[in-house]
């Protein structure tokens, strides 16, 4: 109990006491509410079983697996180039970002490194998928809190980013563009100018959302001080990404790790927030979109010329060994532990996806909150079902 925040601890004790008292007097009982598997706030098919006393949550338990697609097992019967088409579908809003850690793990096993231009373009696309992902989060946040307008702005502006991704890769949602040793293609003509325009628009979108939503008193009263995750608890539950940074932990794999990506060639900063509440999590994500647009802008200027593919054999066979590569994906740390036995496909792949760990905190976090706050907290934790169930 010492790990609980004061407010939650008091609320929990009060709720238990009230429950006991009411039970003695009126012989009432609590109500078990199934939030999901079909519920608009769960972004898919997450089920949260909540025991309620009135509108207060006594305990809540997430139950996942309704959308399990078995990607870890499926990778065992695919060759390496085929796997990217699968893992695209894990976090379906930031697809390209799912491919990169797997490809990097395979490259690590083969001892190949992509040429500098490929690394730059990878980073650009990585950040574009982060922007596409978080942009939708910012709009969806409004819907979860009852403001219907921001989501339309979010869909409008995400469209520009999806057009860019489509222009470069040919796929709006599932690019399947990353290859071992580089990329499938070079950037198309006109991409750089168009991207600059879009980045400008997105900074405008961030300002708009900040005005429309983050500055709103009701939004602040709904999110500030709600769902507080202290630093140590966040670390114990293995949280990552913006959720962790919002608790004041300065941890970003883009900066802390030496990977063949171009993050060390540009000037950007890691955003943290000391509060750890729902507002902090949303705020950190908003600022990260801004930072991402800055990263993309700089990479557009500094991309070197050159080949986009290293020398790799036509038929890829990965030598025996094991490799772990994780990157800072839109939702948090995403990593692949690839075990190879020298075949054309991996022997075993363990996928560490961010949302699965991020929602593991919900039983702790939802104790003592009200039903509307469940929605706020879930929205601010920002999970994607594909990323939980894989």
């Amino acid at each position, binding site marked *: 109990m010492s790990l609980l925040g004061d407010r939650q601890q008091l609320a929990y004790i009060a709720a238990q006491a009230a429950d006991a008292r009411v039970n003695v007097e009126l012989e009432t009982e609590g*109500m078990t*509410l*199934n939030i999901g598997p079909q*519920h*608009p*706030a769960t972004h898919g098919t997450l089920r949260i079983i909540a025991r309620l006393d009135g*509108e207060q949550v006594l305990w809540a338990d997430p139950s996942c697996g309704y959308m399990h697609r078995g990607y870890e097992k499926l990778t065992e019967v695919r060759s390496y180039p085929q796997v990217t088409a699968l893992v695209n579908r894990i976090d379906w809003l930031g697809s390209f970002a799912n491919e990169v850690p797997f490809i990097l793990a395979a490259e690590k096993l083969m001892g190949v490194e992509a040429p500098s231009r490929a690394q730059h373009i990878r980073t650009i696309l990585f950040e574009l998928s982060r922007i596409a992902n978080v942009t939708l989060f910012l709009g969806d946040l*409004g*819907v*979860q*809190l*009852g*403001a*219907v*307008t921001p989501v*339309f*702005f979010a869909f*409008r502006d995400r469209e520009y980013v999806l057009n860019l991704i489509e222009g470069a890769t040919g796929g709006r949602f599932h690019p399947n563009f990353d290859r071992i040793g580089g990329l499938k293609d070079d950037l198309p003509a006109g991409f750089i100018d168009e991207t600059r325009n879009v980045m400008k628009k997105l900074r405008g979108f961030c300002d708009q959302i900040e005005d*429309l*939503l983050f500055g*709103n008193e*009701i*939004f602040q*009263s*709904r999110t500030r001080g709600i769902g507080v995750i202290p630093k140590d608890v966040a670390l114990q539950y293995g949280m990552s990404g913006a959720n962790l940074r919002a608790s004041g932990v300065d941890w970003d794999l883009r900066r802390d790790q030496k990977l063949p990506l171009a993050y060390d060639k540009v000037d950007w900063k890691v955003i943290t927030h000391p509060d750890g509440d729902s507002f902090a999590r949303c705020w950190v994500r908003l600022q990260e979109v801004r930072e991402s647009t800055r990263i993309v802008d700089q990479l557009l200027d500094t991309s070197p010329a050159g080949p986009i593919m290293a020398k790799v054999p036509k038929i890829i066979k990965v030598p025996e060994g094991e490799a772990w590569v994780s990157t800072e994906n839109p939702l948090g740390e995403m990593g692949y532990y690839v075990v190879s036995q020298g075949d054309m496909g991996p022997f075993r792949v363990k996928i560490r996806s961010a949302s699965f760990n991020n929602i593991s905190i919900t039983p702790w976090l939802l104790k003592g909150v*009200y*039903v*509307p*706050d*469940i*929605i706020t907290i879930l929205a601010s934790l920002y999970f994607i079902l594909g990323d939980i169930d894989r």
Partner: protein
Amino acid sequence: MNLATLLSADLPYWAQSLLRVLGGLVAVLLPAGTVVYLFLFKMMSFMQSRLGPMEAGPQGSMQLFAEVGKWLQKEDIYPARADKFIFKLAPLIVLASTFLLVVVVPFGPDALFTDFETGVFYALAVSSVSVLGILIAGWASANKYSLLGGLRAAGQLIAYELPMVLAVVGVVIQAGTMNLQQIVVAQNAGSMFGFSSLGNPYVITQFVGFIVFMIAVQAELTQTPFDMPIAESELVSGYMTEYSGFRFLIFFIGEFATAGVFSMIASILFLGGWAVPFSWFGWTTIDSIDNWMNIVGPLILFTKMIAVVFFIMWIRFSYPRFREDQLQKFAWKVLIPVSLANIMVTAILKVAL
């Protein structure tokens, strides 16, 4: 022969009642619902950077009829464990509340359905009937989300009934009557500091009351930021979850029509209602008003209603939602003290001046 004498003299009582109900439906509620719905749909769409309905009719103007057609074709479903009679009754009660509210609204010097001496009192009383409909809709659906929504609605509507009544008390004190028609006359025949070309719309003197009233209306209509009973993202439309087809349509139309009717009442109480300032045409009392105001009056009232609805919906589409306890806190700790203070100040000034 004008409408009032037609409705009061020659016909038997049942025929009068029937005519009034049909009049309320055909003459007011349907056009109000349709126009409000279309206007709002387009307005909302432009706010949200999209076009809105475009296919049904020119610029989507027939959208409401298309939707009614769609809803009518749907299967009439009710949950297996629902209390069927009450389940079917609930939308009708909500709609009846809207009907009963229209009955007292004056549209012109003679264009009115009833001339209650205690019209304000009646309007505020029947507007709370809809709570009953919502509560039993939530209860009869045999659904936990609906139950939560229904209970939230009951708590919220009761909390906001009080500030609404208290806000109107200021108007009643100032006008010295509870008759809605006479409140309209008092506003337009009055003058501010001897300057009579604008009349004396109470939105100026009762500004605090107007704001409190509009907030309470927003809550009464369960529109964002007070839409916890519906709350699509939490309770999946709350008490409406289990309703489909025609019953859902009744709830849906009722929501927009009630918004329209409440806006009419707001414009009667605070914005001068159907009339123009009497000094424009040299009128002094209600009897001296020219007969053409019976045609123009409803249009003026309608324009004011659209303006008020615009503000209601503007708030609705741009604000997030309160939490239940925050809403209660806001009603009891802010709105009620403010409106009580408003009543005191109004009463003191009324006696002093």
